[in-house]
């Protein structure tokens, strides 16, 4: 389908405000009479609270109150379980344990909240936090993913008889039979460590209870304002119309801003209703490292059975997944890992056991990639090892195993994160892989460049891996589109925006459908006053689920426009077209009426309307996919490593992305660049270091290393378009894609750069120090 506006590199509508400091972020909300909250957080990861002394803190001038769990009374209750385990799977163990607003008796991770101070300024509130004295009985911390399951281990939740949070097995085909036929079976252990999402804006919340209106106004840096509104209303015993949640401009989300009902989101509304004054809390960076959710920590034992020509006969996998101290987000992340552990390959036999454990660490919920990078990492690493063992060209082995284009929709017959069957809707893998090989200059590098550079003493290596990404999952999203009497269009959707350019790309869909300028569409995202139903921005679903809801609503408005215009212009509907803010007769362009005039006519002030019709040129529509859309891509890199200092430099980076229809290629490229940068962080820079007491040893941006402009390579982005068959726009998600394959490609390139050490990289993230150890170990062996 050819579009006029969709697919164009349209400049963003939201930019002028963001560029001039005129965009509202939650930290910018300052209300008269506003109080400031600061939290007393536990230094210990695991400790019983013996007593809390707030008396000294309360005496500080400017302190309005200091509150503990006891003060909350009946309002104290744990957060809601956000995502329940898949109802369709049998024999699932799931022990739901949810985070609490204020700790009552036992601290379960460092940074958990023990008390809250409310004061006239944040400075004073922090003065008071220092004066709250908590007497603890420190307990041994549960840290190790395996040891925590041993009998006699210290328990995070003492009402359970072990630290098992969940257990499930997914099976497809008959792995054991496949193994019997295999020429080669490779088994390895993989260690995948924790990182932080580290959005540049920390979380934050401003709440304002208006007792006269009996209305709670909330500004929240959240990815999911509507569920927050629903949950807050329920917790506070209010009707949903009494709560309005606005997610204004949000400075990056990357997953953790959707962990609905953080402790602070439970405490602050209670405070404003109690004190009848607005209360503000902006998370600081130090808090962010403890209080905002994290991801990626898994140990995996994975076995791959292959024939001697390199065909994958089956995969058997045991995943131990760390969920931290609580598991409000259900099994989303480990299910995603399973969904991606067969990669882009036609794997007939798969057996995967997931064991989720509680530890005394920060809660785990999805972070950009959300379990997917771990799946792609293990399957690609095993294939690389197999190619070495079988002396096969890694490119040929991948070609041999790709799901062929005629096999779609391809049903994996296991359950994905949306609890529906894991079906890959579409795909065309080989051309994308070939394009990436070509753009990366794979042949030339191997034959000429690498030998030449090696002769100069340079250690350069190449890595290239394909990946898939399940995107655009349900349940649904909605959109409301209305033409105003001015002829301009107002629209709203329930997903929040954290930089994804929704205000522009959704406006492009509407502009396309209604024949108006993009600038004339005002798109509201993240305000519960504008739309009642919705879920949020996560799982690379905005462009798919909300995008198609926007299209549905805009199409419906278009029908209304045409119907009304047909009557007024006395022209059959099929002879009308929408362009330039007008409806006109195709063959007689001067015979037209503006959308504004139509909007006025559609909402008569007097007279009788036709019974059964709706006023206005407005429509609210929803879109819920049967199953998700599967994006696909290939990332390749050439890197150089200084084998003495362990410093690396990525010399070339190529991506080929197939996310179906692109709403705005500029935006898609930006999403990929950002994803790759987090991916590179996950390779060599970003690791959260917890010690044996579950103390985080790098809770600052000085020690938690986000890639800067100096570490990032120039990224070449190429596109392929295999439209998603199950949505009208043909879109697939791309928000997380950039992050997913990077560690796998990096490991391959690093091994390739250092052949003399015969490295086998089975972990991520690495670091210069870790690489030094690995090389050193190989040196000792030889």
């Amino acid at each position, binding site marked *: 389908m050819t579009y006029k506006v969709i697919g164009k590199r349209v400049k963003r509508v939201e930019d002028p405000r963001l560029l001039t400091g005129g965009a509202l972020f939650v930290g910018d909300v300052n209300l008269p009479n506003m109080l400031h909250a600061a939290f007393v957080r536990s230094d210990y990861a695991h400790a019983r609270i013996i007593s809390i002394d707030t008396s000294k803190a309360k005496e500080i001038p400017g302190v309005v109150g200091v509150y503990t769990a006891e003060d909350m009374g009946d309002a104290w209750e744990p957060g809601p379980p956000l995502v329940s385990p898949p109802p369709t799977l049998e024999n699932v163990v799931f022990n739901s344990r949810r985070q609490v607003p204020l700790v009552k008796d036992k601290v379960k991770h460092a940074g958990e909240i023990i008390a809250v101070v409310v004061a006239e300024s944040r*400075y004073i509130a922090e003065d008071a936090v220092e004066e709250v004295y908590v007497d603890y009985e420190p307990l041994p911390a549960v840290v190790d993913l395996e040891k925590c399951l041993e009998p006699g281990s210290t328990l995070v939740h003492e009402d359970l008889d072990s630290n098992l949070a969940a257990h499930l097995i997914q099976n497809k085909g008959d792995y054991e039979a496949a193994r019997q036929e295999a020429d080669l079976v490779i088994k390895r252990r993989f260690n995948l460590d924790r990182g932080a999402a580290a959005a540049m804006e920390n979380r934050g919340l401003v709440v304002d209870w208006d007792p006269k209106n009996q209305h709670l106004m909330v500004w929240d840096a959240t990815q999911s304002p509507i569920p927050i509104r629903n949950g807050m209303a329920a917790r506070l015993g209010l009707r949903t119309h009494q709560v309005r949640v606005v997610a204004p401009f949000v400075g990056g989300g990357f997953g953790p801003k959707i962990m609905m009902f953080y402790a602070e989101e439970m405490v602050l509304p209670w405070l404003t209703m109690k004190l009848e004054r607005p209360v503000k809390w902006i998370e600081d960076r130090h808090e962010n490292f403890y209080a905002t959710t994290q991801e990626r920590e898994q140990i995996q034992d994975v076995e791959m059975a292959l024939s001697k020509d390199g065909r994958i006969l089956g995969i058997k996998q045991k995943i131990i997944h760390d969920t931290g101290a609580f598991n409000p987000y259900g099994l989303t992340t480990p299910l995603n890992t399973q969904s991606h552990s067969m990669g882009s390959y036609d794997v007939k036999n798969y057996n995967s056991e997931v064991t989720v454990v509680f530890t005394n660490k920060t809660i785990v919920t999805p972070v950009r990639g959300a379990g997917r990078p771990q799946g792609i990492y293990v399957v690609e690493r095993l294939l690389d090892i197999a190619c070495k063992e079988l002396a096969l060209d890694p490119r040929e082995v991948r070609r041999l195993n790709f799901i062929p284009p005629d096999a779609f929709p391809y049903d994996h017959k296991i359950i994905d994160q949306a609890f529906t069957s894991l079906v890959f809707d579409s795909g065309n893998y080989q051309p994308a892989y070939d394009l990436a090989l070509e753009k990366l200059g794979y042949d030339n590098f191997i034959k000429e460049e690498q030998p030449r550079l090696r002769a100069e003493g340079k250690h350069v290596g190449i890595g290239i891996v394909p990946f898939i990404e399940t995107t655009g999952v349900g349940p649904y999203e909605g959109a409301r589109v209305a033409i105003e009497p001015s002829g301009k269009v107002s629209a709203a959707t329930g997903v929040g925006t954290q930089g994804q350019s929704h205000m522009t790309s959704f406006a492009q869909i509407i502009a396309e459908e209604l024949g108006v300028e993009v600038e004339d569409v005002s798109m509201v995202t993240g305000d519960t006053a504008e739309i009642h139903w919705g879920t949020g921005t996560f799982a690379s679903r905005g462009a798919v689920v909300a995008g198609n809801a926007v299209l549905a609503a805009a199409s419906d408005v278009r029908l209304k426009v045409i119907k009304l215009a047909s009557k007024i212009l006395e022209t059959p509907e099929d002879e009308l077209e929408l362009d330039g803010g007008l409806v006109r007769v195709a063959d007689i362009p001067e015979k037209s009426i503006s959308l504004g005039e139509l909007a006025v006519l559609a909402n008569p002030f007097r007279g009788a309307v036709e019974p059964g019709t709706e006023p206005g040129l407005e429509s609210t529509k929803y879109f819920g996919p049967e199953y998700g859309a599967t994006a696909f891509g290939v990332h390749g890199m050439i890197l150089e490593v200084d084998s003495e200092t362990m410093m690396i430099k990525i010399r070339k980076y190529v991506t080929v992305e197939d996310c179906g229809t692109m709403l705005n290629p500029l935006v898609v490229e930006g999403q990929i660049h950002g994803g790759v940068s987090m991916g590179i962080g996950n390779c060599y820079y970003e690791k959260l270091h917890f010690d044996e007491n579950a103390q985080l040893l790098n809770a600052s941006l000085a*020690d938690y290393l986000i890639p800067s402009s100096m570490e990032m390579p120039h990224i070449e982005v190429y596109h392929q378009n295999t439209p998603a068959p199950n949505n009208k726009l043909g879109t697939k998600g791309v928000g997380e894609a950039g992050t997913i394959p990077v560690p796998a490609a990096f490991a391959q390139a690093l091994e390739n750069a250092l052949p003399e050490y015969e490295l086998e990289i089975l972990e991520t993230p690495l670091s*210069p120090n870790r690489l030094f150890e690995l090389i050193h170990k190989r040196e000792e062996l030889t």
Partner: protein
Amino acid sequence: MKPAPFKYYVPRSVPEVLSLLNEHGYDAKILAGGQSLVPMMNFRLVQPAVLVDINNIPEMAEIQPHEKGVRLGAMVRHSQAEKDPLIKEKAPLVHETMPKIATVQIRNRGTIGGSLAHADPSAELVVVSTALDARFKIQNLNGERVVPASEFFVGLMVTAMGPEDLLVEVEFPPLPPRSGWSLKEVARRPHDFALVGVAAVVVLDKKDRCKEARLVYLSAGDGPISAPEAAGLLVGEQFTPALATAAAEKASADEIDPGSDIHATADFRRHLANVLTQRALEEAFQRAKGGK
């Protein structure tokens, strides 16, 4: 992350500063560039009762020639030093060091004196001033004294200055003819604290034999760590890779005392020190031979 309360003073002259320091002793902290102090105050790891802001004393920010070398007021900012032609000419190693220190925003505010008085063992200037045998002019109400770098840095973030002392000036003596220098460091990201670094200074005779050598390491102990024995191996010798290797091995194995942290074990730091020493010596000898 908001700092604890403090009393704030803005003296306009050195004597005023000295009497404030005398009055408040350990309760007071000097606020120079603040680029190390303020983060620690924001974390509330440092909570001085009194802050003496010395940013309003223009004479403390002057750069002047001094006995063929150069003299820097303690309040000279890194970015000012980076662009100063006199420093480029008289103390080229200092000039070269500047862009390696933190980021542009930090250098626009951070001061030479503040960095030296903070005596962080990872700070480039601490090491470079030791390698160049800089001299530190310190004042208090009782008068003035000049302390050489070798005596100025006495331990982890501890200098020879007491709470009543103010560092007013640093002198960098000129390098003799046929000198060469190099500063090599490895950091995870270029502007992070280096995992390890080395400043090398060599002076050659007419036959390219080393007359004098100095090797000083950063992030390798509780202060700037000199390696006199390794440097001694170089004296009397012409440069060869084997010579550099021998010196590097001596220094990294026996003379430095690095710690371990999440970014690097002591082992890895010794390894890096070894590698960087060889690279630094090669560059330093090369430069010395280049004449000047």
